[in-house]
């Protein structure tokens, strides 16, 4: 087959690749830039952004690609965080969890476990929630997340309302995670890996089915696709990514609390996805950077920053379609489609 666009396409993708490489190099150099410009706090802020970008990219797989408007993704994020916190607690006390699971302070143990447990939780609650669709699905995911929120509030053995302090970051062999820049690079590496995985998935056969479900579930059933199981697997992968992000955040902040599962956290993850552009690969990362950056700026300016962020959000939804890229189109006066 002869594709007349092929040469132009190849050039474009080479350019894209180059831009990505530059971006990645800049991101990797960020701790040096931060020190050089006398803003060491920037590294910590960037770590948060990178971690939340993983969570937002995970939500994007469900929301942006498959059209599952999950309003409870903070639950899986929080569950991932609690796995780290609880394992740390048992590591310190030396007493095994449930009498047979020893605690751990090794990142290579805690992260996979966090991903696994988040996956299990999202499998069970996703299997239930996906029996509904549309507005019920939104309400149910929110409600189940709230259920887990109350669960951790009531979990007095692990701090209840007050949460759990993880006194020292989980360790990695040969790498000093206690060093701020080093931990940033660790998180960046996980983020790159996760985004690569998302890229492979959305272009795979599985990803094509997800996109089809978003556009017309009826059509997918009519060509013989049992959509429920694809939505469920998508939901589980999405929950696992959020669990990974939560586990990294628990290490970064050295603290977990029910606040991680608070419904506003779910809302913020959704905003990141929409802000960056739902159903685009790197959009959620941009969305995370912009939202966290905006919040940090506004918060430095006034303690009532939410009174500004709220209306900003409303304006963005009302007047731009497709988040930042919609805004860019609006500014250029281009067509909105």
């Amino acid at each position, binding site marked *: 087959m002869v594709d007349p666009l092929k040469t132009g396409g190849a050039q474009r993708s080479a350019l894209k690749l180059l831009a990505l490489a530059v971006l990645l190099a800049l991101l990797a150099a960020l701790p040096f830039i931060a020190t050089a410009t006398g803003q060491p706090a920037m590294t910590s802020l960037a770590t948060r952004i990178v971690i939340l970008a993983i969570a937002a990219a995970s939500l994007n797989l469900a929301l942006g690609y498959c059209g599952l408007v999950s309003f409870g993704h903070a639950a899986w994020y929080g569950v991932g965080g609690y796995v780290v916190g609880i394992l740390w607690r048992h590591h310190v006390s030396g007493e095994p969890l449930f009498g047979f699971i020893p605690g751990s302070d090794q990142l290579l143990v805690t992260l996979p476990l966090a991903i696994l447990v988040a996956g299990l939780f999202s499998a069970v609650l996703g299997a239930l929630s996906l029996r*509904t669709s549309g507005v019920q699905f939104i*309400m149910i995911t929110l409600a*189940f997340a*709230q259920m887990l929120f109350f669960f951790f509030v*009531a979990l007095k053995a692990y701090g209840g309302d007050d949460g759990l302090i993880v006194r020292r970051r989980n360790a990695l062999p040969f790498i000093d995670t206690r060093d701020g820049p080093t931990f940033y690079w660790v998180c960046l590496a996980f983020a790159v890996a996760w985004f690569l995985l998302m890229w492979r998935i959305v272009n795979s056969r599985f990803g094509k089915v997800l996109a089809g479900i978003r556009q017309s579930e009826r059509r997918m059933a009519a060509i013989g696709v049992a959509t429920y199981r694809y939505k469920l697997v998508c939901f589980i992968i999405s929950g696992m990514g959020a669990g990974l992000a939560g586990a990294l955040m628990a290490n970064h902040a050295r603290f977990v609390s029910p606040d991680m599962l608070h419904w506003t956290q779910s809302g913020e993850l959704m905003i990141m996805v929409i802000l960056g552009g*739902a159903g685009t690969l790197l959009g959620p990362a941009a969305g995370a950077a912009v939202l966290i950056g905006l919040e940090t700026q506004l918060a430095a300016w006034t303690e009532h920053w939410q*009174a500004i962020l709220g209306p900003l959000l409303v304006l963005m*939804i009302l007047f731009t379609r497709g988040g930042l890229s919609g805004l860019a189109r609006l500014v250029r006066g281009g067509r909105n489609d």
Partner: protein
Amino acid sequence: MPLLIEQALNGLQLGVMLFLLAAGLTLIFGIMGVINLAQGSLYMVGAYAMAAVAAKTGSFWLAAPAGLLAAAVAGMAMEYLVIRKLYARDHLDQVLATFGLILFFNQMTTLIFGRQPLFVEIPDFLEGSVPIVAGVRYPLYRLAIIAVGLATAVGLYVLIARTRLGMLIRAGATNRDMVRALGVDIRLLYTVLFGLGAMLAGLAGVMAGPILSVQVGMGEQVLILTFVVVVIGGVGSIRGAFAGAMIVGIVDTVLRAFLPGLLRQVMMGPEADALAAGLSAMGVYLLMAIVLLVRPKGLLPAHG
């Protein structure tokens, strides 16, 4: 037995409050197709307006209408400025925009009233308790809440089933063009309806004022419980909202009241209390899960 009756009444009281919120939510969703997260904010507006006027004037008879009015006005302003532009949008846009509204309402309330909760006195004429059956007394104010809630439910039923406005509401839900052809300004109809839904939320807020602390965030707690009600009852159905609200109200109350005692018979005191607190907080959500397994569309879904 007396305790059971008392708790059943408490459940009924929570149930009617949830019904007021769920009815507004489901009415707005059923007719305009909008999911409004800020319904909880309107509840908060009602409670705060009532508390503020009560603190200034000391008069319940001024404070209560003030709360209703504030919620209705806030609701209609919200519809006029924001919600109106969301009718043609998908649920995601509606969720995010009304999420933005919640942030705004919460922060503005903090700005005006501070972070300290407000407390509202029960009006004199509803003070005290009355005997209901032999040996059981029940607070008059809570009985009044139940009465007002049930009366509102009946009123809503009559409004929708028997009046011209109700006819327009039912027609508007299925056929906007027909309503337009009748010469009715559908935009105005929607604004009024939204105000009605807001007033229902405001009524719940006004009644909650004297028995709960009035504070920022009160709206979202009740909102999420309202979602549970709507999912259990069936989206878009007022009857479903009523059934769901009663079930959630009673189950939640009864679990909180009796679970600690039950668990303490099989395990240690503090552990039993902690487990009971957790289980009863999760109870209605587990109930929702069970309903979903059996009837994914809820108990009494709207037709269609």
